[in-house]
């Protein structure tokens, strides 16, 4: 039987019997993939929770022009996210979040270019594209900080809401949002906004840190001494995943 093992056709038969890498991927890359799979489950759980809570609250049924914020129904996202920095009071629905989406997609593109440069052991190009990626990530985080700040402080008019305080109904004007009350809609709306975009923002922040580490090590010649730039590829996988999650958050939180 041992002589048949040398036949070309027997190769696939021995794929899982040791001595070979069945996935043809390095340990680090493989583990990054499985980590990302588990992270995808976490993000899915958050987004699915959004779906569950949204569908268990009444939807707004009137026309979009007459829409008003109320605790009675779930808000229309394009009415909530319509502010853009330096354009106070100008309703520009989803423009700012669209800009953020483009920034993150572009930083993903520069990351692929860094990975491509890493394949060619081109240190100068890796440095250049990693810096652009870090710049994109930081810009995105800055935009998100502004968006959070606007969401928390709210609009000029606010919304009138009723509260049960000491057994009596009290009407109050609510400005902005926190974890217990918000002017846009039912309390879970703001809580979900903070959790989902916050969890994503944390990922972006740690991604920027990792990107900086890669940039630093590339710039100091660490990967040249090691002989390969595979680390750029692994962190690149993480960075693309962060972009991928934003694509889903953008659709399910802001568009639908």
């Amino acid at each position, binding site marked *: 039987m041992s002589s048949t093992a040398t036949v070309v056709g027997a190769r696939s038969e021995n794929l899982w019997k040791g001595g070979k890498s069945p996935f043809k991927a390095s340990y680090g890359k*493989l583990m990054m993939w499985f980590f990302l799979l588990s992270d995808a489950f976490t993000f899915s759980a958050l987004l699915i929770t959004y779906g569950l809570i949204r*569908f268990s609250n009444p939807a707004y049924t009137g026309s979009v022009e007459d829409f008003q914020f109320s605790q009675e129904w779930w808000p229309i996202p394009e009415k909530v996210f319509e502010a853009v920095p330096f354009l106070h009071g100008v309703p520009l*629905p*989803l423009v700012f979040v669209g800009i953020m989406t483009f920034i993150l997609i572009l930083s993903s593109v520069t990351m692929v270019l860094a990975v491509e440069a890493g394949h060619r052991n081109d240190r100068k190009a890796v440095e250049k594209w990693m810096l652009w990626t870090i710049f994109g990530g930081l810009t995105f985080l800055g935009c998100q900080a502004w968006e959070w700040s606007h969401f928390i402080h709210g609009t000029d008019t606010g919304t009138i809401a009723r509260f049960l305080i000491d057994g009596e109904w009290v009407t109050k004007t609510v400005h902005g949002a926190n974890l217990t009350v918000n002017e846009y809609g039912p309390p879970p709306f703001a809580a979900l906004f903070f959790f989902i975009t916050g969890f994503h923002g944390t990922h972006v922040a740690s991604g920027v840190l990792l990107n900086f580490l890669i940039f630093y090590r590339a710039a100091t010649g660490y990967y040249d*001494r090691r002989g390969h730039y595979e680390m750029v590829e692994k962190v690149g996988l993480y960075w693309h995943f962060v972009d991928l999650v934003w694509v889903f958050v953008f659709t399910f939180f802001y568009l639908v």
Partner: protein
Amino acid sequence: MQSEETNKVAVQPPDKEKIRKIWRVALILGIVTACEFAVAFILPPEYRMIKIVTFILMTVVKAFYIVAEFMHLGHEVKSLIYSILIPMAFVVWLLIALIVEGGSILIVR
């Protein structure tokens, strides 16, 4: 790891075709995002279901390009592709299950 190994790696010239392909995928992602905006504002709110279905389809298209091209999964071994994609079936199941659940919570309330 020692410093005497420095400069042993040879820098290769960039492959123009590969870089052009990266920018082409970037362009597709940009166009699909622009289309999502167009659908969000051109289609009137009465077509809610059609809008939601187009958004989800466009998101899947974008996800495909990011995962297959940027993350290079499309060029990996088949068994690796499937071991990443098949577990995602759980997510689809949970999504459908909990959205139906949410609808019935609304009725019971």
